[in-house]
């Protein structure tokens, strides 16, 4: 599809909007429907779209499988890291209010956002890894 100019240019235009939309869903999760899961899938979809147009090899140049394999647990660690921080600050596991002692509700916003970031990273990386392993099946010269 790399030779089809319309698709190629359209994909270039759409890509940033997909990411922006993902970020909108991500931050909107604080107030209404949305959040890390959905945003992560949209981010992954943007990259899958890129791979569909430009080929899997091109995408793997940008995001290698090794990197993704590190990103999946990294998200989990960010999530549990918030929990550990609240332990250190003397509270229960995942007690966000302690993140900002002067303004607990600000701390809660912060905690949720950081946790959702962890979720976004893990979900997006997992979706891409699944895409890699499915689309990479049976291809020659694919590492």
């Amino acid at each position: 599809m790399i030779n089809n100019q319309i698709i190629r240019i359209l994909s270039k235009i759409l890509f940033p909007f997909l990411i922006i939309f993902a970020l909108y869903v991500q931050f909107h999760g604080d107030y209404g429907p949305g959040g890390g899961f959905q945003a992560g899938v949209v981010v992954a979809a943007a990259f899958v779209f890129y791979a569909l147009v430009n080929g899997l090899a091109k995408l793997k140049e940008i995001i290698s499988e090794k990197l993704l394999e590190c990103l999946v647990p990294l998200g989990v660690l960010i999530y549990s890291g918030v929990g550990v921080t609240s332990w250190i600050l003397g509270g229960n596991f995942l007690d966000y209010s302690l993140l900002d002692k002067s303004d607990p509700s600000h701390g809660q916003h912060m905690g949720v956002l950081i946790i959702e970031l962890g979720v976004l990273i893990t979900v997006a990386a997992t979706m891409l890894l699944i895409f890699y392993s499915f689309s990479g099946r049976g291809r020659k010269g694919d590492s």
Partner: protein
Amino acid sequence: MFDQWPSLVVAVPLIAAGICAIIRYEFFCWLVSIITSLVSLSGSIFLYLTVKASGDISYKLGGWAPPVGIEYRVDIFACYLLILISLVAIAVLIYGRKLINKEIASHLRGWFYSMYLLCMCGLMGIVITGDAFNAFVFMEISSLSMYTLIALGRDKRALLASYQYLILGTLGATMYVIGVGLLFNVTGTLNLIDLSIKIQPILDTPVIKVAMSFIFAGLSIKIALFPLHFWLPNAYAFAPSVVTTFLAATATKVSIYLLMRYFYTVFGFSFGMSSELIIGIILSCSILAIFVGSFSAIFENNLKRLLAFSSVAQIGYITLGIAIANNAGLTGSMVHIFNHALMKASLFMILGAIAFQIHKDQLTLTDLSGLGKQMPFSMAAMTIAGLSLLGVPGTVGFVTKWYLIQGAMQNGWWWLVVLILVSSLLVLIYLGKIIETVYFKPASNTGIEMNELPGSTFIIILLAVSSCIYLGFDTSLTLGIAEEAVNALVPEG
């Protein structure tokens, strides 16, 4: 710091799983796993001592007060299972490092440890949480990592077994969550303690009955209660031997824990309600499980599958205690949760060690012929663990059967006493078959160069098997906790 133990025992394995997945260096991961299980074990023991001294612990996750927030609730019953899981986890890790290195490809080992820890985190979470939906989340965590662990088996059929388990396990989890959804719909709460209060006035309405059926059916799949046990034999047979050991000792037990939690804590079951329909269903399923499981084991040639069928039968004994519905019966099933974990873990560990020594994945009965002379230690250990499975006096299996029979007699169910005794004879048949092959058949695999049994494997098997006997004589430890757990679960008992 000490009041953080309820979250520590669950969160530490989760964090360690993440670390293992990033740094996938085998020795490092193994060490992290060992340390993690040690932390969880000491946490569980500390929780047990605290609960014993000063009553149940309620831990507010994230600082939100129950019933709105998620509550971790620790009572003696939960501690009992927590100790069991972390104890098995650490024993399997020490026992199995060499076996893991042999059975699992080097680029997957880091992931293996990560999944192992995640599975442990999920199982501990199910036990410790006091929230119906949180239990579902942990159930998914443990199940998903378990499917991965099973699929790591070297045999191609491991993938199929794992897939089978995935489909059935998901079905079970879905039914469970439908049941929880119904309960939430009529009560508006997910906290188990809160549920048990709000459910009281509407206990006889159809909604609650339907919810109870859904939860029972869903958990029965996870437990592998008789007609729903089809995933279990293959999953146990084709998983790597360390995974089989861990699974057999913990996974089904945790589901039984959750079922008992719902029956006694939420739905307010009490002793002497043996006329209820659901108890009748459990009773017939348990008896069928014992007999069908044992018969299938008799006609099975693959040893891991044989033990898996025997697990189906043994699970029948545990649920039988629920059906007998009196103090002795429930104590029997409670103590059998630990005893069966001990016996089955020993047997699977020994099988794994033999497979390691004679370079074979799937052991059949003929592989064992004449091994009595070549491997005197392993075979003696297997005989002892097998005898406990049979319930010979002086072994842990006897303690269980003693209590179950007592419970049946108190109900006046003499036919059940006969059935329990007859079922022991069935164990004797398949056990006898193994022992005969081991000691009285000529050696079939002379000339195979055998691996040396690793020292740590030897020690763990020795410890496990000797505790099969020790805990059969000195019952105060296991039986003590089991009785306390029954009292915690059913207050008037």
